[in-house]
């Protein structure tokens, strides 16, 4: 299966995905005009990864600002994780945020409300 390595831009996050370890990382701001186009390959990777019950998927996020269409795309990803969790697949999310920006924690918390799998929201102290 193909892994992903997407470089960060001003309006899109850095994304790396490794199918062997099942680790998917996203970091940065996300406000592309067309989020479905941007997140398409990520969704495809998640779908592939989750199609095999033996594959875990751990999502490590350091997303900061998401426009509403990115929020919709993330919701689709979390819905896929939730369905896989229901089938017994090992899925987990850790969302790290800068302790100074409570908005990110609020956003993560609202996603977490609809998820029953392991979902950690962890503050990081700025350097």
């Amino acid at each position, binding site marked *: 299966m193909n892994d992903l390595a997407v470089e960060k831009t*001003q*309006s899109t996050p850095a994304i790396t995905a490794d199918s062997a370890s099942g680790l998917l990382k996203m970091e940065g701001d996300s*406000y592309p*005009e067309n989020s479905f186009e941007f997140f398409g390959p990520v969704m495809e990777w998640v779908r592939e990864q989750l199609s095999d019950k033996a594959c875990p998927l751990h999502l490590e996020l350091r997303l*900061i*600002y998401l*426009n*509403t*269409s990115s*929020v*919709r795309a993330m*919701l689709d990803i979390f819905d896929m994780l939730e369905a896989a969790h229901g089938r017994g697949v090992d899925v987990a999310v850790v969302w790290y945020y*800068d302790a*100074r*920006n*409570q*908005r*990110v924690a609020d956003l993560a918390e*609202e996603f977490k409300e609809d998820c029953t799998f392991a979902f950690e929201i962890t503050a990081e102290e700025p350097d």
Partner: protein
Amino acid sequence: MNQFDLYGLRKHFQNQRILLCFNGPISRSLIEELGNALKKYMEAECLQADAITDVFGIYIEMTQNIRHYAARHDYGEHEAEATVVIGTDERGRYLVEAGNRVERADGERLLARVRDLAGMDAAELKAVYKQQLRAPRDEAGASGSGLGLIDMARRSSAPLEADLRDAGAGGTFFSLRAMV
């Protein structure tokens, strides 16, 4: 040389505490660059990270809504224009305002929606936000900018304000204001 009265414009911007303004056809890259400048400015002013995210988020939703609206209506370059102003009030709160030409019926519908949202408290706004997030995508697209408006209302520290003006040639100009 004085055709544009630059000094007068500058004085006007200063008196109105306008930090950034733009009028004309707005592109994706222009939205990003102006947004970047806005963010840098707020960071230099040592504004709190949450407030920066809110002002920036409102700016992005407003301008992207305008681009999406123009794209959906196959507007030519002239109609895809936006007017964007960001400034502060006398108490240092940030005001984000943007306007564009819309079809009258759409403008009326947006005004009504903004009025609905103005009557909601934080819990109600969260509930409609979550509901809209789960709405079928087609429906969300047809109703236009539904989620964006709610997102802005949630980030704004005062209810959103909207206005509709006759823009001549049968068009109307819709403008929206948020405050952080």
